[in-house]
């Protein structure tokens, strides 16, 4: 098998294992990454929500916020894991396709790829 094929299989394994990155922090009771708190968390920590933060922090509505489907109320860890895997597939595919498009554009721009 070609090494590249093995590496793509490795990426699929990463997608399948990705919920570990969600479940382990949940089971160990960890909070957000440092500097990635929600407005509520900030308020608890420093006693106020910085005004510039409350103004702009919600201006972009991501379609899959925090790698989860929108509109789930108190989703279970299992539901979150499912949306995490789906997000992993969609995200990795989007990243790969975009990179291939950029790569091809760059290759074409200044030299042709003579064999």
């Amino acid at each position: 098998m070609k090494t590249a094929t093995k590496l793509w299989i490795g990426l699929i394994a990463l997608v399948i294992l990705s919920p570990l990155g969600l479940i382990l922090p949940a089971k160990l009771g960890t909070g957000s990454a440092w500097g990635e708190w929600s407005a509520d968390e900030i308020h608890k920590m420093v006693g106020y929500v910085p005004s510039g933060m409350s103004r702009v922090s919600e201006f972009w509505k991501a379609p899959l916020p925090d790698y989860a489907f929108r509109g789930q109320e108190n989703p279970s860890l299992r539901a979150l894991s499912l949306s995490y895997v789906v997000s992993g597939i969609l995200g990795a595919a989007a990243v790969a396709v975009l990179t291939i498009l950029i790569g091809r554009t760059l290759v074409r721009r200044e030299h042709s790829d003579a064999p």
Partner: protein
Amino acid sequence: MHIPDGYLGPQTYGAAYAVAAPFWAVASKRMSRTLRSRQVPMLALGAAFSFLIMMFNVPIPGGTTGHAVGAVLVAVLLGPWAACIAVSVALIVQAVLFGDGGITAIGANCLNMAVIMPFVGYGVYRLISGRSDVTSRRRWIGAAVGGYIGLNAAALATAIEFGIQPILAHDAAGHALYAPYPLSVAVPVMAAEHLLLFGFVEAIVTGMVVAYLQRADASLLNGTPGKKVNV
């Protein structure tokens, strides 16, 4: 390490865009000269790997989480300019589709994880691996140490960007307008968690993949300057 919207004031995120932009421009220019179409799938593989490895949040029990980035691994395989493009694409998709990192902070996040990290890490890798054979132990050790130092450099840059916010903007009551913690808090906390844990995660991921590739297909590690890469 993904700075959200609202954590950096306009002059900081604007400056970060201004610093990152020339790197994107030079990276595109260099890639158009050196990238072969056969290498494009490897570049996509590297970008997708970086995206996925960042989903593996590693917990500090009762504390915070962090993750590896993979930028130094891509730099070792395809060079730091290629890593700049690959990791930038991953970070932009994370911000736009998943709200992981702010839209205004894309410049800052790319500066930290797609510029500082791959260049610092790659420099360390080159320093340690030197002119050693591609199957040499110095290669994977260099990659691992490069990953450790690269991630820590990115974390330090992020901490400084957070930490200068209360100095740059606060209201009459002394409340910060953006990220509230000063340098004296941001730098030690970010440095400690990355020096003690997340840096080792990055080192293990980077070193292990390089060690695997040395066995599976060492030609992938030929990508040092001056040599043509045969993928």
